[in-house]
């Protein structure tokens, strides 16, 4: 149930990002005279200070926000897989070094580092922002994958592959990697959400590409357009709500998987009541 709801939410936003702009058609940056109007039949989510339609911006923003999230999660996951699997399989000094590197990136506060790196970027395009977020966001996945690799390494099929003379690289990427695909998938999804949050924070500070409409840049313009003081709640509530809903969808998927793996977590009806 949880997993279905979660996948439903994630699918909804993915479809919105891919097909939404085609359906709506309008230009998200197009201004009009009808500024700061509340939700109405014409503008379902009202308009911004310069008369831009908030719903159109949300739909186009999904493309940029989720695009950055997915792109940087792909990069981060590639790093995480390389570091986690190689470290976990090879062991020894290589593993020690990679573990220390992973733990360092895990402890260092990501957002301040992203802010500093973005400050140095000559051009803050969508791709460079995604790369900066990925560089700071791979450590958690690497740690999880290393732990999983350690346990898979001992299994019979890996021993058999080694005995039949397969090279270490082949074993890591063709024997172990396929077994870990579910773990990689969950860690990928978690990284997407973290990256969406990071991009939103960066845009909110005016540190990403403000000429493209993303949920973060919508919040930036809402804050700088005094949306709060004017009482234009329809301008700043929707972008944050979308981010939080995507995060909720992902969490539901993850919790659902946890409950399958650990039946005790399921919310059964009052098993303890009799004893209490």
């Amino acid at each position, binding site marked *: 149930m949880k997993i279905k709801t979660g996948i439903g939410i994630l699918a909804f936003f993915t479809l919105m990002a891919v097909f939404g702009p085609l359906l709506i058609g309008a230009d998200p940056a197009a201004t009009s005279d009808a500024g700061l109007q509340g939700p109405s039949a014409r503008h379902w989510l009202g308009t911004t200070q310069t008369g831009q339609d908030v719903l159109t911006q949300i739909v186009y923003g999904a493309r940029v926000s989720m695009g950055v999230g997915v792109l940087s999660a792909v990069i981060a996951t590639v790093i995480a897989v390389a570091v986690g699997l190689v470290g976990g399989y090879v062991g020894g000094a290589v593993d020690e070094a990679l573990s220390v590197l992973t*733990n*360092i990136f*895990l*402890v*260092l*506060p*990501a*957002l*301040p*580092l992203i*802010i*500093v*790196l*973005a*400050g*140095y*970027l*000559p051009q803050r395009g969508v791709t460079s922002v995604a790369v900066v977020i990925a560089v700071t966001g791979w450590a958690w996945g690497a740690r999880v994958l290393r732990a999983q690799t350690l346990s898979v390494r001992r299994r019979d099929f890996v021993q058999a592959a080694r005995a039949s003379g397969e090279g270490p690289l082949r074993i890591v990427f063709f024997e172990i990697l396929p077994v870990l695909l579910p773990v990689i998938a969950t860690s990928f999804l978690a990284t997407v*959400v973290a990256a969406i*949050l990071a991009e*939103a*924070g960066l845009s*909110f*500070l*005016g*540190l990403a590409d403000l000429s493209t409409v993303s949920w973060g840049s919508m*919040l930036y313009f*809402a*804050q700088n357009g005094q949306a*709060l*003081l004017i*009482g234009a*709640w329809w301008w*700043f*509530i929707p*972008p*944050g709500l979308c*981010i*939080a*809903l*995507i*995060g*909720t969808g*992902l*969490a*539901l998927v993850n*919790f659902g998987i*946890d409950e399958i793996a*650990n039946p*005790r*977590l399921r*919310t*059964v*009806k*009052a*098993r*303890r*009541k009799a*004893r*209490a």
Partner: protein
Amino acid sequence: MRFLARRLGFYLLTAWAAITLNFLIPRLMPGDPVELLVARMKGNVEPAAIDAMRRAFGISDASLWQQYLDYLGNLAQGELGRSITFFPTEVSTVIADSLPWTVGLVGVATLISYLVGTSLGVLLAWKRGTWLDGVLPAATFMHAVPYFWVALALVFVFGVTLRWFPVSRAYGLEVMPGFTGEFAGSVLYHAALPAVTIVVASMADRILGMRNVMVTTLGEDYVVMAEAKGLTSRRVMWAYAARNAILPNITSFALSLGFVVGGSVLTEIVFSYPGIGSMLLKGVENEDFPLMQGIFLVISLAVLVANFLADLAYVVLDPRTRQESE
């Protein structure tokens, strides 16, 4: 104490990594920070000023190794360069003025969030199957909410609409800073909304994390045994189940600190709170690279210290980490 010594060694290594990263970032990023600055000033800079800026960044024709040694030497004396925004104030002075506000706000808010969130998690696990399960969907939603969005919503509701709380600054314009009750009251009043933001946005993680570990722990034999002995349910809940469930919770709490600090930076900015987060934004807006880097360094070191404190708590709670030495 081997556990603590090992952790301390790791933190020293990480501190060195942060310091070195700080040195490398301006040198490895595409483009020269000084040229970037000159370009953004549309070229209206005298050659002498460009030279001075290069010196301020510690970028010279000397070898990279020599630059690194100079940088470490300066750092050892607490020298972080001069801020461009607040020229000619030293970066270390700017940080020293703003750090107490951040440590006070984020420290207290994080502590409240941890204590309340963990207790709620224990309670939710204990009472599972009752109406309290209704908290779970809400917590799942809150767990992914951006800090600055919570801040905006609180400003909108309690600041602008209801006018219950001030929405910017750390204390009122009318009070003089000093050790007076009036000043303290004003500080608390102004800190209310930013603190609530951090508590609300960070608590869901603690609730969900603690609940899940606690539920697993409740199925352990020693908990069943404690119940069978007829101990009061309060004692079973806290002294048997919660005390064991809290260990993984502390580890995940320590790892989430970097995230909390990042969120707090954004929260400060929404509230124009005069802490280190607002300074970081000023630095970024003014291309003030020395200030940005100094702040990154200080935030990183603060997170490391907080992590070490979490390790100390772990040692107090888990006798196994102490046993090796005895």
